[in-house]
């Protein structure tokens, strides 16, 4: 456990958007959307695991007609993979959406908020 994470147990919690602490990429197969999500800082990975669960993602994409969300954890990559069924309203060859692939939806996921210890805040400069 890093020094920062030890300090984190006594620090105040602050809200950030996922985009500040994680990166993501979306892809599609037919009507199935998948989005992989990775913490920039491994110390923040447990906070994402605890808070960005299947039901939270389901809720965030519910307006698109999602009927199932599954999450797969990949701790060795500081990452997780979401498989989201039903969000593409027809998929690339059947959708009326300009983005029929749903490629842009990684940034929809990154809008979600996460509570993290303020000692782990680093001003968004996660990647040199």
């Amino acid at each position: 456990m890093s020094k920062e994470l030890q300090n984190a147990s006594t620090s105040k919690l602050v809200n950030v958007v996922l985009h500040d602490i994680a990166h993501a990429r979306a892809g599609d197969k037919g009507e199935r959307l998948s989005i992989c999500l990775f913490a920039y800082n491994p110390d923040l990975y447990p906070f994402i695991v605890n808070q960005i669960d299947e039901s939270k993602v389901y809720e965030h994409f519910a307006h698109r007609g999602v009927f199932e969300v599954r999450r797969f954890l990949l701790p060795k990559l500081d990452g997780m993979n979401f498989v989201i069924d039903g969000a593409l309203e027809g998929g690339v060859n059947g959708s009326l959406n300009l983005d029929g692939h749903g490629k842009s939806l990684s940034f929809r996921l990154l809008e979600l908020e996460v509570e993290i210890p303020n000692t782990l805040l680093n001003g968004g400069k996660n990647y040199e």
Partner: protein
Amino acid sequence: MLMKNAPFDQMLIGCGAGFSGDRVDAPGPVVDHLIADGRPSVLMLETLGERTLALAQKARRADPEMGYEPLLQDLLEPILGKCLDANIPIVGNFGAANPSAAARLIHEIAKAKGLRPPRIAVVVGDDLRERIQEMELIPWEGTHPGYQLSKSKIVAANAYLGAEPIAKALSEGADVVVTGRVADPALALGPLIYGLGWQLDDWERMAIGTMAGHLLECGSQISGGYFADPGFKDVPDLARIGFPIAEIHADGRLILTKADGTGGRVDVRTGREQLLYEVHDPSAYITPDVIVDLSAAEIVEIGLNRIELKGVRGKPATETYKVTVSLSGGWLGEGEISYAGLNSGARARLAADIIEERLKIRGLNVRSRIDLMGAVSIFDSDNSFLRQQMDLSSHSDLRLRLAVEADDRQTVEHATQEVLALLCCGPAGGGGARRNHVERIHTVSYLVPKSSIQAKVTFA
């Protein structure tokens, strides 16, 4: 004749294209890198998606000599001679819906440039159009439950073939291997099976080779493409981004880098994003050749723009091939008009309301959607859930987009006409009205028993 002396203890696979529409000057630096390196090498070009195969089927229906990758000539002309001289085979799914016609074009390019006649292999067997009506189709897990296939609308059906026919083509001395639908990673795995002497039931090696293909298949998506997020994830020189090169050892070591002297970046983060790209359950990434288990996979940076993939495991392949069925999907129409400046949010919203009412008044039986680009579009749903809740008053440059779908062109044109009519009959200050109409092909996926499909290699 480097590739003719297989097996080797290591080889390189460079990727020069990651989708139909990719940069046509990308393969050049990759080929130069492979030649300078000197190890046995193959160039792969991946140009075929679910959408592009459907478009290729349309093109072939309109003209029997078309239906291959439209940019094939632009992609191959600058590099075909270099690859033939250096004995670097080119493997690509640019045959799309018409591999034989693609092979004829490549012969023409070689002839016109005064090159030696290439030995061109064509992989066939993926095209199931003639047989699909009688085949046993098992629904693919990602297909919407309850989906009913209307067999009368089927215009094409293609199976995702595996790596074996590509390996066979190379073992028979192919300079170019033209395929239609194959699993994208097979474009790399096939050359590795041949070049490194791997056995088809060596599941660990099949998994490594498949992941080499998976990391390469989207071209620059592993070398900094589709990655930049300024201030968060910066990528140098995207205008000259380098395409990726995999170095694979016979013992299964896999290293990813990119063409020398190019822009972009290859690091643990670009690697991770591409590793899981379009993967569903990471413990069971299914291809025709193997089931890959990525649960314990990790990416290690071993140098500048050099990463190594470790911890990949393989399990025996399934007994089925995935098949993409293309169906005639009616017509898509789009009409757009812009509103900018003072009170434009209210004027655009009024325009949207008018369109919805006009479609009802005219009794047009269309599936429809309206976006207000500049405020909310691609995140929204067809029933405009997000737009209904949105305060548009802070937006001052909006473009209304109507999208409609119907079985026939005329109905779609009647609907988009309503956008043009807003120029006079709509709110004040609308401008820049445009519309377009395209015939659609839908796709849906199934599984079929491998025993019902025979992949073949012929030389053109």
